[in-house]
C-alpha cells in the first residue's frame, strides 16, 4: 500500500516536471512578445532593458528555464505576475480555493445524486422514473453550462429571489481566513453555481452506474440476497450498488480535471472569483508567469484526484491489492 502510494507519487512528480517544461516552452513559442505586456513602450530603451533584466527576461531561454525550475523547486516560487506585480502564489492562493470549493461541491453533488439515481434506475428498469431521469440527465449534459446558469439565475435569483445573483459573499460581509468559507452567506452563494455545474456532470456517473447495476442485478449473489430475505433497500444499496460503484469512480478523477478546466464559464456567469476566470484573463494579458502557474495548479489538482481514485479502488474492491 505505502509502496504503491510512493510509486504513484513519484510518477506524479515526473509528470509534473514534464508538464512544467512543456508549459514553459509552449508560452515562449507564442508569437507575442511577453515583455511587451509589462514594459511600457514609451520608456527609454535603457529603462526597458533594466525592467527586463529585473525579471530575468534578458537571459537566454534555456537559462530562463533553469532559473524558473530552480525557483520552483528550491523556493516554491512561481515568479511575479506581470499584471498584478505581486507574487503569482499570492494571486492564485486567493483564487484556487474558491474554484476547488465550487468544483468539489459540484462533483460531490453530481456523483452522490448520480450514483443513487443510477442505482435506482437500473433497479426499476423500464419505469417512468428511469425514463425521466435519463431525459433530465441528458438535457443538462447537452445544454451549455452558461446557458443553464443564466436560466437558473433568471428563475431562482431574479424570478423567485431565492439566491443571490453573483459573487461569493454579500457586500460588507466581513470574515477572515478560512472562516469565510464556513458561513451561511457563503453557502447561499455557493448553491446555485454548484447546482448548475453539478447538473452538467450528473449524466455520466448516473448512466455508468445504471449500466453497472444492470449487470450486477443478474449476479447470483443478488438472488441469494433475496433468498436470505434481506429487505429490498438493503439489497439495492448494500449489495448491488456497492458492487457497481467502480466504473463510475474511475471517471471521478478525469471529471474533476475536466471540471476545474471547464468551470471558467460558470465562474464567469456567476462572477465567481475563481481560477478559471483568472486563467483567461492572464492569457489575454500575456501574463505568462500567472498563466503557467495556473496550468500547473490545474494539473496538480487532476493528479491529486487521480491518486485519490486509485486509492479508492482498493477501498471499494477488496480484489484490488496494491
Amino acid at each position, binding site marked *: 500500500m505505502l509502496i504503491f502510494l510512493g510509486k504513484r507519487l513519484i510518477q506524479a512528480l515526473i509528470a509534473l516536471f514534464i508538464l512544467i517544461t512543456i508549459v514553459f516552452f509552449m508560452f515562449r513559442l507564442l508569437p507575442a512578445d511577453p515583455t511587451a505586456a509589462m514594459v511600457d513602450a514609451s520608456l527609454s530603451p535603457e529603462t526597458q532593458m533594466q525592467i527586463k533584466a529585473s525579471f530575468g527576461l534578458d537571459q537566454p531561454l534555456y537559462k530562463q528555464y533553469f532559473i524558473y525550475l530552480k525557483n520552483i523547486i528550491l523556493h516554491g516560487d512561481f515568479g511575479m505576475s506581470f499584471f498584478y506585480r505581486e507574487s503569482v502564489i499570492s494571486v492564485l492562493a486567493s483564487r484556487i480555493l474558491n474554484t476547488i470549493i465550487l468544483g468539489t461541491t459540484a462533483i460531490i453533488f453530481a456523483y452522490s445524486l448520480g450514483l443513487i439515481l443510477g442505482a435506482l434506475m437500473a433497479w426499476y428498469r423500464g419505469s417512468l422514473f428511469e425514463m425521466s431521469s435519463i431525459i433530465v440527465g441528458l438535457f443538462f449534459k447537452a445544454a451549455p453550462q452558461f446557458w443553464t446558469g443564466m436560466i437558473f439565475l433568471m428563475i431562482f435569483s431574479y424570478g423567485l429571489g431565492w439566491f443571490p445573483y453573483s459573487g461569493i459573499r454579500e457586500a460588507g460581509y466581513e470574515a477572515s481566513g478560512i472562516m469565510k468559507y464556513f458561513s451561511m452567506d457563503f453557502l447561499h452563494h455557493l448553491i446555485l453555481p454548484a447546482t448548475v455545474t453539478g447538473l452538467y456532470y450528473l449524466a455520466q456517473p448516473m448512466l455508468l452506474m445504471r449500466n453497472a447495476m444492470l449487470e450486477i442485478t443478474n*449476479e*447470483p*449473489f443478488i*438472488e*441469494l*440476497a*433475496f*433468498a*436470505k*430475505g*434481506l*429487505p*429490498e433497500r*438493503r439489497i439495492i444499496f448494500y*449489495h448491488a450498488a*456497492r*458492487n457497481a460503484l467502480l466504473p463510475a469512480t474511475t471517471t471521478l478523477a478525469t471529471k474533476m480535471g475536466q471540471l476545474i478546466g471547464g468551470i471558467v464559464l460558470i465562474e464567469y456567469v456567476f462572477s465567481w472569483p475563481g481560477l478559471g476566470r483568472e486563467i483567461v484573463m492572464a492569457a489575454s494579458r500575456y501574463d505568462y508567469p500567472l498563466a503557467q502557474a495556473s496550468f500547473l495548479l490545474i494539473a496538480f489538482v487532476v493528479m491529486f484526484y487521480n491518486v485519490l481514485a486509485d486509492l479508492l479502488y482498493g477501498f*471499494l*474492491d*477488496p*480484489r484490488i491489492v496494491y
Partner: protein
Amino acid sequence: MALLKVENLSTEYDTLEGTLKAVDDVSFEVKKGEALGVVGESGCGKSTVMKSILQLLPRNGRISSGKILYKNKDITGYNNKQLREIRWKEISMISQGAMNSFNPVYNIGKQLIEVMIVQGNYSEKEARDRAIELFEIVGLDKKRLNDYPHQMSGGMRQRSMIAMSLALDPGLIIADEPTTALDVVMQDRILGKISELQKKMELSMLFVTHDISIIAEVCQRLMVMYSGKIAEISTTHNIFKKPYHPYTMGLINAIPTVVEDIDHLVSIPGYPPNLINVLKGCRFAPRCPFATSKCRVESPEMKLVNENHRAACHYIEKADEFREKSHRTETWEGLLV
C-alpha cells in the same frame, strides 16, 4: 407428514417468442428429515421448481397455477413481508458457492453474520459465535471468516455456503447444483459433508442437480424431470434398481461404473423439446426407443407403479422388457433423431 407439498405447480416465462411453460403440472412432496433429489437435463424445469418454491423467479416468470404448501400453508400468494418471514428462517438455500454466490466486496464472515442479524435477530456477538460454530461444523478454520470470497478456493466457498444455509436452523434447505464447478475430488468431499450433515441433523432437503450419480449418494428419494414434467418419482433405491420410465433408464445407463464390466456407456441421443410450442403426446417420445404411435398422440398420465413409485409412461407394464433392452447401446443408436 409432508413438510413441503407441491401440488399441480405450473410456472411460465414470458419470452419474445411466446409463453414458455417451464414447469407443467408438477406435484411432489418432501417429508421431514428426508432429502429429495431432483434430476434432469438443462432446461427440464428443475431450477424453475426450486425458484418457484423460494419465489425467486425472474421478472418475466410467474407461477401460473398450483399450490406450494409449506407446513400446510400455501405460500404462493405471499407478499414480500410474508415471504421474508419464510426466507432463510424456514427455507434456506445452498447455491453454487463456487461461482459468484458471495458478494465479492464483503468478507465471508460479514455475509454469514448479516443474515443472522437481519433475519434472525441475533446480536453481533451471538452471530459471530454462531458463525464460528457453523464453520466448525463444515470443517473450516474460523480465521477464514475474515477472508473475502476471492481468497477462498471453490471448495471452501461451498463449505461456507453450507454453513450459511444452516445459520438459522431452517426447516428446509434447497441445494441448487452445489457441486457444479468443483473438481471431482472436491465434489466428493462436499457431497460427503452434505450427506453427513443431512443424516446427522435430520435435515429436510431438496437437492437439484443434473448429475444423477450425485443423488444416489445424498438423497433418499429421487424425482426425475423431463421437459417441465415429472418422468418418475420414487425412492432412490427403487429407481436405481427398477426404473420404469425409459428416460430414467437412459440416465442410469449413462453413469460410468468401475464395478461392472461394461464396454461403453449409453447416451440418449437428441435434445429436449422446445417448451414454447409443445408437441402433443409424450414429450420424451421423439427420443424414446420404445415409443409407439400412441405415445406421439396421447400424453401419459402419472401412474402408480407401487405404493411410493410413480412414473409417467404408457407402458409401465412393459418396463422389464425395456430395462433389458436399455442396457444395449444399439437400442439407443438405432434411433432416427
